[in-house]
């Protein structure tokens, strides 16, 4: 029954629905005198239906949760795989270096070539003999550089350029070579400034590494040699970056000069080109030799036994692995690029609207996420605040659609609620300021609360009366001494909190900027504007990463607030159209 009043004195009321319905019921009961009455059956059906709806919605929520979980795990798996690949690569290279070392040692001691299967240096190319060890070390140094670059986050672009250069040198990709100059040019232009900035750091880093290598000393030839080689590699890279705008030949020359100038080189280090070519030769050589990998030398066994974990697998797939190794430089770099790109891609996720929170009758002025839970509070011009649990949809009554229903409506303000702040974690408090001149403190009901629970006055804890004047949006960076402000003149400005100087200013929107939020790691900035759009900014580059058109206009106002969840991957926007939206 849709209506719900019941006649108190069952007498005279005929005009009212309930009176009639009750009478009907009685009539039916008396006339049919069966156990099932029509209203009873209807009620039963209705009840069942509501139950099914409820279950269905719960299943849907479960499903969504599981899907998110799957996506997360898949991402994690991908990351682990990348890590694994990288480590395997390193192991291979170390093994290779060890073998080279052994060959060298044997040669120096006995003056005879070590006939060691896959290690066998090409007999027709004696000058290249010292190269492999050096190459491995160079490779190691290169890895360190790469690691460093990854740490500072520019790996993709640099490695890309690098890999392109190598490709050009090897002449592996002729078709790419054709378009190479333009490509490189554009890359250069893009990254030149960055590189010059980087080169300084790289230099320092190289010095540091060298010091570290020297101080480790005592370890003897290997470590010392390594550190020198590392330095060389660092310098080579440094040089490469610094001279990126130059031609290939110049680059080679410079690299050579640089090596000379370091002056520490015991061995004559050749230029990049030769190195790469040697590498390739060597690898193809060793691939050719891999078939004749003999067991006549026990020394050969040793590394295999030592590097059991990687060795066993490697031995089986030697041809394959070497095939892979043959492309080491190229595929490595390409992969490095892909990995970096992929990780960056997943990091730079796009946000999609997931929940629309409909329940306010008028513009939503402010919102704030719960410090820990997947919940948020919205404050509206309809004088109320509402608490929403994103992970629990309230039992869908017949009137409710698939929207999220608010868990609780905070009623105490007698004028539009203008601003809102969440208390410290675990304090379970939130504060709201209204146009009625009051600031109110609320105890948040538990996330398990039911909207139709009895009224509990304890929710409204304290009442403080104050004059609340709203300031412009100001947000402070979670880790840096940086303030970000939103302005009516469409600008977002960044301020050095120490010196008080304006560090950066940009026109960020087509209309007044009204909302700002920084993500908990301080990498991204979210802004909302009366131009109806929410924009996500990379704080590092100050570029817009994503734009979402989220709300409609009421008078000349549109988006009134935006927020990041402090722990979970949610962002939200509040609009003058009375809606709040949550993006995942």
């Amino acid at each position, binding site marked *: *029954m*849709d209506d*719900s*009043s*019941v*006649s*108190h004195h069952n007498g005279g*009321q005929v*005009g*009212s*629905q309930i009176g009639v319905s009750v009478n009907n019921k009685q009539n039916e009961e008396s006339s049919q005198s069966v156990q099932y009455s029509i209203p009873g059956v209807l009620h039963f059906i209705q*009840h069942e239906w*509501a139950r099914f709806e409820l279950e269905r919605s719960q299943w849907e929520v479960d499903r969504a949760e599981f899907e998110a979980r799957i996506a997360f795990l898949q991402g994690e798996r991908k990351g682990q795989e990348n890590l694994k690949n990288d480590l395997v690569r390193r192991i291979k290279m170390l093994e290779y270096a060890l073998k080279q070392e052994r060959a060298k040692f044997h040669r120096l001691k006995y003056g005879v070539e070590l006939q060691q299967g896959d290690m066998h240096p090409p007999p027709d190319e004696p000058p290249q003999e010292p190269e492999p060890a050096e190459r491995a070390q160079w490779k190691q140094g290169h890895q360190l550089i790469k690691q460093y670059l990854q740490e500072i986050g520019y790996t993709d672009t640099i490695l890309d350029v690098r890999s392109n250069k190598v490709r050009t040198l090897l002449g592996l990709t002729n078709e790419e070579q054709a378009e190479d100059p333009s490509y490189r040019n554009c890359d250069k232009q893009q990254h030149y400034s960055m590189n010059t900035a980087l080169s300084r750091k790289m230099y320092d880093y190289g010095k540091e590494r060298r010091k570290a290598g020297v101080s480790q000393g005592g370890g003897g030839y290997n470590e010392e040699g390594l550190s020198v080689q590392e330095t060389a590699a660092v310098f080579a890279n440094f040089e490469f970056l610094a001279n990126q705008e130059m031609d290939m030949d110049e680059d080679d020359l410079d690299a050579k000069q640089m090596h000379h100038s370091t002056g520490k080189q015991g061995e004559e280090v050749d230029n990049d080109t030769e190195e790469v070519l040697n590498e390739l030769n060597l690898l193809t050589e060793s691939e050719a030799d891999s078939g004749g990998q003999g067991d006549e030398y026990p020394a050969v066994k040793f590394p295999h036994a030592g590097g059991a974990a990687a060795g066993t697998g490697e031995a089986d797939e030697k041809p394959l692995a070497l095939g892979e190794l043959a492309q080491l430089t190229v595929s490595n770099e390409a992969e490095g690029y892909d990995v970096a790109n992929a990780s960056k891609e997943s990091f730079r996720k796009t946000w999609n609207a997931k929940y629309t929170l*409909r*329940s*306010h*009758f*008028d513009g939503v002025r402010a919102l704030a996420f719960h410090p820990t839970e997947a919940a948020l509070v919205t404050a509206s011009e*309809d*004088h*109320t605040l509402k608490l929403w649990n994103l992970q629990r949809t309230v*039992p869908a*009554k017949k*009137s*409710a*659609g*698939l*929207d999220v*229903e*608010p868990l609780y*409506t905070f*009623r*105490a*303000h*007698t*004028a539009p609620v203008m601003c809102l702040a969440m208390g410290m974690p675990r304090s379970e408090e939130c504060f709201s300021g209204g*146009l*009625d*001149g009051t600031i109110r403190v609320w105890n948040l009901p538990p996330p398990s609360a039911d*909207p*139709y629970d*009895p*009224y509990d*006055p304890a929710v409204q804890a304290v009442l403080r009366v104050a004059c609340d*004047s*709203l*300031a*412009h949006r100001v947000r402070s960076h979670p880790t840096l001494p940086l303030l970000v402000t939103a302005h*009516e*003149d469409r600008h977002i400005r960044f301020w050095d909190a120490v010196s008080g100087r304006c560090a950066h200013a940009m026109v960020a929107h087509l209309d*007044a900027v009204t909302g700002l939020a920084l993500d908990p790691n301080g990498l991204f900035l979210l802004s909302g504007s*009366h131009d109806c759009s929410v924009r996500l900014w990379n704080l590092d580059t100050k570029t817009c990463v994503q734009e979402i058109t989220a709300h*409609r*206009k*009421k*008078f*000349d*106002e549109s988006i009134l607030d935006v927020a990041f969840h402090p722990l979970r991957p949610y962002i939200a926007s509040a609009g003058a*159209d*009375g809606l709040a939206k949550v993006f995942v």
Partner: protein
Amino acid sequence: MADGVQILLRRNRPGSKAKDFCRWPDEPFEEMDSTLAVQQFIQQTIRRDPANLEAILKMPEAQDEGVWKYEHLRQFCMELNGLAVRLQSECKPELCTQMTATEQWIFLCAAHKTPKECPAIDYTRHTLDGAACLLNSNKYFPSRVSIKESSVAKLGSVCRRVYRIFSHAYFHHRAIFDSFEKETHLCKRFTYFVTKYSIISKEILILPKLDDETPITQPVGESEA
């Protein structure tokens, strides 16, 4: 604002004084191009003079009547929040254990799966929450520009329940009712609204006619509530 001189922006900026809130020149209805034009128009008219029921409820020409009624009901529910806030301080569950107006009826709270005898304050809150939920439901009211006929029919039951909040306040918390009414003229406007559009049958309107007389136009059609 560089261009604020030429273009008037109807905005509440941070730091505005409460008295300046929404105090901008009226915008003619014809010039409102937003999807929320009806709400804007209604609020603008109310802000001008909450007592002028004729003006508030005079539907602009060529306006969809369903949307007009819907937006008004949204506004009523929104403003009723003010009455609920006042009642919260006085209408205690121990005192008003049932939702009653006159002694004749106990109203059961329809927000629950099986209607319950909620205390009056809970009934009030649940009814307003339920109304907010229904009126914002994507299923029944996905658009604020056009509304299905079947959804317009839902407005009746909301009005009927909402009216009980007025009647409870009137018969049990008269002081609150009077001060609220004096400020907002909400009950008068509501009565005028439901009568004008014949949303609730006259028998249910149990409150005596409120002091100053507003000409109530004759209902257009037969009551269906």
